[in-house]
């Protein structure tokens, strides 16, 4: 599978990206490219810089050095809203719902702006996103009343509503029961099959492995492994810093 | 509203009275409860005009020291309550908006207790464009500038005068090169040192003090607000600035300011005054003299916790003048006639003579002023004495001014 993918052009290119907060270096010289249509999983110890990398990709955080190319364009200096409209959808590890809006309106926000739709088309896109993430039954609930996991699902719904070409997921499977996790995996696999490029950070490795074509391991701000999921999983370094003996 | 005015409307005169009972300028009106009691008693039997007895209804309103509210109230009194005459008092903030509404709604209006320049020029009027429906009496800049230099003359100085003129209605009027204070002072041989307009609420007068020191200023005058003056005067003492004479308007109108200045620094401050116990005035209502007024006031329950001030009798005089004009009009419900009647007023009141026949401008009358000086008695009481009377010759002068030490 990866052979067929590698011939395609890269949708996302991260070149020599570094990020630091004051003296604290969080990312050092990250280089990686994601071809269109690929599903990449990111694993790594806590605090490795995974979420930060996602933020740098979608523009929520500015890189201190390096550049980010999306669909061949340099987006390093563009804000997250521009990147969202260009086709990057993102979920936040710690959910950030619009608490006074209903679940539907949360999704509508993404559909109207990220996907740039108006009127009926926006409504339909938002409903579609709710269906995909299994939230239709909560559509009229104010997001502030949702419990934690429903908020995480709402993150997914909103990101999907922007009709992304590149979907950036940050720990969306944690806390799900097995059955729920299976259906989530099915959903993501479906999105992947429909051609959406996916970058997925997840500690529930099992879920990740069911979808991704490629696995990346980040530790202390650098890529320590990148490649076929099986290969990465069996790398001793990855086992040592991340997986432990358990799996 | 409309039903009641129809029934007995003919024999009732409605007078609106707007003053700042609350808010920043409430001090001007704190004796009004007593004053209105006295006035209502005077009007209890109504007034006879051309053989008809009219009962008098006084609608007193509180502007809250807020110009917007004052304007609103004036409009309400005119359009809803349909008053025959509006009175307003105390600072341009209350007076000007009331005049504006009266002018716009063609209703006669009588006002006092605001420098007349601030009222006339500040309200957009002039000699060419006089007030059509309003009459105002009070002293203006000449009330200060006409008497202060003769008080300064009583002390040997280098004739350099530092001024505290803030950027507000009063300060602006004082600073005006043509109609302001400077021409008077210069005529009397004094040089004005104006550091420039400062903002009310200024916390640091260092620059102004340095300028006064650098210029060798020996006389201070101005119209600062009470807190600003205390700040200035305290800082001046801290920074070693000691003028020989200080005549301060506005801030010292109120009897509470001087005793509050730290370390008895208020001792010897002088100020322009228009009323006090020894002033040779009497009420046209019943002949009450200032001295009687004060003792009545202090004995009444309404004046119990208060110290008398110069504003209350001034406010009272509005009703004396109004009553005289209504009588002179022949028909108190004919607004034009009432308005015209004011032009003929020349009378003695509790607050002195009001003379609209010889004012500086149409509709403006000035009242004379004197200069008083604060002193702390050996008993530790604060009191003030008259030290200059050139404009009110009948006023007894207690002594000449004592320089600040």
């Amino acid at each position, binding site marked *: 599978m990866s052979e067929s993918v590698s011939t395609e052009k890269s949708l996302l290119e991260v070149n020599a990206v570094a990020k630091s907060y004051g003296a604290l270096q969080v990312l050092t010289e990250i280089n990686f490219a994601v071809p269109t249509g690929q599903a990449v999983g990111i694993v790594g110890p806590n605090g490795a810089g995974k979420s930060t990398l996602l933020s740098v990709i979608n*523009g*929520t955080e500015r890189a201190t050095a390096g550049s980010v190319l999306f669909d061949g364009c340099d987006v390093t200096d563009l804000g*997250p809203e521009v990147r*969202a409209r260009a086709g990057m959808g*993102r979920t*936040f590890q710690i959910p*950030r719902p*619009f608490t*006074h*809006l*209903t679940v*539907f309106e*949360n999704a*509508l*926000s*993404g559909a*109207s*702006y990220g*996907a740039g739709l*108006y009127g009926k088309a926006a*409504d*339909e896109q938002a*409903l579609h996103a*709710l269906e995909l993430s299994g939230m*239709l*039954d*909560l559509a*009229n*609930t104010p997001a502030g009343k949702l419990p934690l996991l429903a908020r995480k699902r709402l993150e997914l719904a*909103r990101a999907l*509503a922007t009709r992304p070409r590149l979907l950036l997921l940050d720990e969306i499977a944690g806390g799900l029961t097995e059955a729920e996790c299976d259906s989530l995996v099915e959903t993501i696999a479906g999105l992947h099959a429909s051609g959406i490029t996916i970058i997925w950070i997840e500690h529930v490795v099992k879920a990740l492995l069911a979808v991704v074509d490629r696995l990346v391991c980040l530790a202390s701000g650098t890529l320590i492994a990148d490649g076929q999921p099986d290969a990465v999983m069996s790398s001793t370094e990855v086992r040592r810093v991340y997986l432990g003996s358990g799996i | 509203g409309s039903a009641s005015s129809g029934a007995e409307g003919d024999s009732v005169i409605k007078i609106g009275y707007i003053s700042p*009972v*609350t808010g920043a300028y409430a001090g001007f009106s704190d004796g009004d409860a007593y004053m209105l009691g006295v006035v209502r008693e005077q009007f209890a039997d109504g007034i006879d005009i051309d053989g008809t007895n009219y009962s008098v209804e006084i609608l007193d*309103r509180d502007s*809250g020291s*807020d*110009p*917007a*509210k*004052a*304007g609103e109230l004036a*409009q*309400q009194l005119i*359009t*809803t309550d349909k008053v025959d005459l509006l009175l307003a008092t105390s600072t341009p*903030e209350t007076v*000007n*908006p009331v005049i*504006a509404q009266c*002018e*716009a*709604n063609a209703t006669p209006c009588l006002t006092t207790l605001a420098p007349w320049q*601030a009222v006339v020029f*500040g309200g*957009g009027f002039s000699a060419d464009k006089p007030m059509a429906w309003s009459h105002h009496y009070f002293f203006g800049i000449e009330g200060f500038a006409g008497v202060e230099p003769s008080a300064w003359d009583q002390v040997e100085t280098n004739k350099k005068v530092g001024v505290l003129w803030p*950027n*507000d*209605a009063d300060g*602006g009027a004082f600073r005006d090169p043509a109609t302001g204070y400077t021409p008077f002072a210069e005529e009397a041989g004094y040089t004005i040192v104006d550091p420039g*307009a400062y903002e009310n609420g200024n916390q640091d007068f260092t620059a102004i003090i340095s300028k006064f020191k650098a210029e060798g200023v020996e006389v201070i005058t101005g119209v600062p607000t009470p807190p600003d003056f205390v700040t200035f005067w305290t800082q001046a003492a801290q920074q070693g600035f000691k003028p020989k004479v200080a005549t301060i308007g506005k801030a010292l109108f109120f009897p509470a300011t001087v005793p509050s200045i730290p370390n008895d620094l208020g001792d010897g401050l002088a100020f322009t005054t228009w009323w006090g116990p020894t002033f040779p005035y009497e009420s046209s209502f019943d002949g009450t003299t200032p001295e009687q007024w004060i003792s009545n006031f202090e004995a009444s329950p309404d004046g119990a916790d208060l110290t008398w001030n110069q504003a209350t009798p001034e406010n009272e005089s509005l009703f004396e003048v109004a009553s005289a004009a209504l009588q002179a009009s022949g028909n108190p419900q004919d607004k034009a006639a009432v308005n015209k009647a004011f032009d003929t007023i020349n009378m003695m009141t509790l607050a002195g003579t009001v003379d609209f026949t010889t004012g500086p401008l149409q509709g403006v009358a000035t009242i004379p002023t004197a200069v008083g000086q604060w002193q702390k008695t050996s008993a530790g009481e604060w009191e003030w004495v008259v030290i200059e009377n050139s404009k009110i010759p009948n006023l007894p002068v207690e002594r000449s001014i004592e320089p600040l030490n």
Partner: protein
Amino acid sequence: MTTLTAASFRVDRYQKRALMAGGVSAAIFVALAAAPYLLDPAITSSWIKLFYLITLATMWNLLAGYAGMVSVGQQAYIGLGAYGVFVFNDLGFDAYSSALIASIAVGAIALPLSFVAFRLRGGYFAIGTWVIAEAVRQIIIRFDELGAGRGRSISTYTGDPVFRNLFTYWLALGILALALIVTFYLLRSRMGIALQSIRDNEVAARALGINVSRTKRIVFTIAAMGASLAGSVICIQAIGVASPNQIFSVSYSAFMIFMVLIGGIGTIEGPIVGAVIYFVMDFYFSQLGLWYLVVLGLLAILVTLFLPKGIWGAIHERFNISLFPVGHRIVPIADHIPTKVLSNADV
């Protein structure tokens, strides 16, 4: 549990109710516009204050309740609107057109000021806007033509008091109508969703493609223009500004906060209710002097603590009515889907 599909639902925007609200409002406005002919103009002219109070409350609510910008500096634009009347009046426009032109000028001033204000968030923003208002006042009083610290009056205005009051009345009413229409339309448009998203979480809003600063800037400018128009009305009604301190007074902001919170923040109806309450209280009780103010303060505290959603919020919660619906509701199309599937279906 049957799986739900998007196709079985449609989005209800309460079109019928919105249309009805529009119709009824239009009728009310026509009635109000005709009122001076039917009633004593003296009575109707006292409503001018009510109109500008509703305008102010509505605009502040748009700013704070929907866009999350809690400003205590709207008096900057009230004052500029009032002074704008002088400027354009002096240039030869009549007072009423000056009000409209001034609002455009104020919009042009508010836009660059937003760049300063938007550096700040939350409590910082509130204080920052207050300081901006102070600075604006301090700059205005440096102009002698504008009366410096003294204030000034309108040089040319309609001489006849009846007509002047009528024109001012219609101007105030027109501005009120405009403010309500703009707010209602804005909130029903897609920008309404954007605004509320920004209010609830800016970072997430940006990640969803919303141009946060542009959206906020638009609302900030509209609110400034609304305040400016209200300020012009205040100035025209008083035939001038008696004191710059008053027209730039922070108490305007205080009363806007009071009206909006008493009525119910984040609803269109709330500020109207709040403004009416404040107007009535002011009309009947302001002559009670200080006790009235003490009670006003107490009322503000009590309503905040015991009726936190305001009066309209409480009515809405209890009777579930909303006169100006701006929300979305998902309703099943096919009748075989049990309505119980959708919780809170009738929010």
